[in-house]
């Protein structure tokens, strides 16, 4: 894979390809040029040989449809930005495209004004990538990202997702004014969010009128958290046992006994299907095998139907009910008393996952 970042347009209409190739080349800053492909197969071939930063794809494609192409690209080329540009005015396909991980969904412009807006959006997408590498930040910490936003004097809301937990940071003209996650607000929420070492983030439109709850500067807050991390690391170095004790407690599945109606739990490695931890289960291997086999089948089915990821699975039995939820690279299976209703299971599971992930 060589050369500068390119844009790839995928559509089975040659006239459309030709027109949009010219429009994008004229109005969008693309270092490596604009490529075209009239089928999904051809597009996938180009993705292997060229450095594609942005792929604009129609949904109506011959043989391999757009949703299928998106699904493959998102899995094999997670760094490539994906934009759907289609004439298909259908809410279900829009939802499915977003569920498969596209960045934007556009209806093919019908007027000059709409075309202008589309080209502006593509320009913004390319510029954002060029300036701060929105998707290429795996090696950057959250602190780096916040500092970049502040230096850019951004007014935005940073939504940070850490497993099933979500946090938000409100920035107004580069100043951090508020933070929120779970039950926490203000500086406490910021300290919790900044402790997350992995996850995803998204920049949402800002809110100039957000009430200020944070009065310390970003630099001050980051220094405080860095100091806290350093002290914890130092303590662990000097006395690993004490250090481990003073750190946040590791999640223990047996703690789940504190939740009414929860009877057992098992955590599985999503790929291998082996139990990493379990509590209250007589034969963990049996449960692990069944859960793993079912989840593997359901994931493959979701991919075939292009229905998006498996979010939750509930198994209802006379003796016990089970809820399985993917969390990162693991599947967490929780067993409940059979008397619990589906809604109650869902609420308890959500609370458990929130605490477990944190």
């Amino acid at each position, binding site marked *: 894979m060589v050369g500068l970042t390119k844009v790839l347009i995928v559509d089975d209409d040659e006239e459309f390809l030709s027109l949009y190739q010219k429009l994008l080349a004229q109005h969008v800053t693309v270092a490596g040029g604009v490529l075209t492909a009239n089928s999904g197969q051809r597009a996938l071939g180009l993705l292997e040989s060229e450095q594609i930063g942005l792929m604009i794809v129609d949904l109506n494609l011959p043989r391999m449809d757009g949703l299928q192409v998106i699904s493959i690209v998102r899995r094999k080329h997670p760094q490539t930005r994906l934009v759907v540009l289609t004439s298909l005015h259908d809410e279900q396909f829009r939802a499915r495209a977003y569920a498969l991980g596209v960045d934007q969904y556009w209806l093919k412009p019908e007027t000059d004004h709409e075309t202008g807006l589309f080209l502006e959006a593509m320009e913004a997408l390319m510029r954002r990538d060029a300036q701060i590498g929105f998707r290429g930040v795996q090696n950057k910490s959250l602190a780096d990202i916040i500092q970049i936003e502040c230096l850019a004097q951004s007014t935005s809301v940073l939504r940070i997702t850490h497993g099933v937990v979500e946090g938000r940071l409100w920035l107004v003209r580069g100043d951090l004014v508020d933070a929120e996650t779970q039950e926490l607000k203000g500086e406490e929420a910021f300290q919790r969010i900044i402790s997350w070492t992995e996850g995803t983030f998204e920049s949402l439109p800002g809110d100039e009128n957000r009430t200020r709850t944070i009065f310390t500067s970003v630099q001050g807050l980051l220094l405080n958290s860095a100091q806290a991390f350093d002290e914890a690391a130092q303590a662990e170095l000097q006395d690993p046992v004490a250090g481990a004790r003073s750190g946040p407690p590791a999640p223990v599945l047996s703690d789940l006994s504190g939740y009414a109606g929860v009877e057992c739990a098992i955590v599985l490695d999503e790929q291998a299907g082996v139990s990493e931890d379990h509590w209250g289960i007589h034969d963990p291997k049996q449960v692990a095998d069944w859960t793993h086999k079912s989840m593997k089948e359901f994931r493959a089915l979701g991919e075939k139907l292009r229905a998006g990821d498996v979010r939750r699975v509930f*198994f209802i039995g006379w003796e016990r009910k089970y809820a399985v939820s993917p969390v990162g690279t693991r599947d967490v299976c929780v067993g409940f008393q059979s008397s619990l209703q589906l809604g109650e299971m869902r609420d308890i599971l959500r609370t458990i996952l929130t605490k477990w992930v944190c």
Partner: protein
Amino acid sequence: MGLLNFIPFLRRSTDTDLTRLPSGTFTMDRKGSIVSSTLPTSFPLAHVREIGRCVMDSFRAARQSRIRVNEIHIHYSTLKITAKEMKGSAVVFVMPTSLEESSY
């Protein structure tokens, strides 16, 4: 760009060869054959069979692991499948969901 207003390929439509996620119900006998279905005919039969096979396999795997399960609810980002086992046969409900509905 004024020409864009007259170019036919830019007209929006709802016509497509893409498969829509269906809403409906189907039943399967204990051998895994589809007995009845209210799913639209536009939804490929192969997909219906695949859904049926998956849920039947999961019921079977539960039995083999001595776990008694008679109902499965699978929530995807944009689709919900509910399967109920009835003496070896099964009734399966399929319903598309919006992203907001599924984001709990």
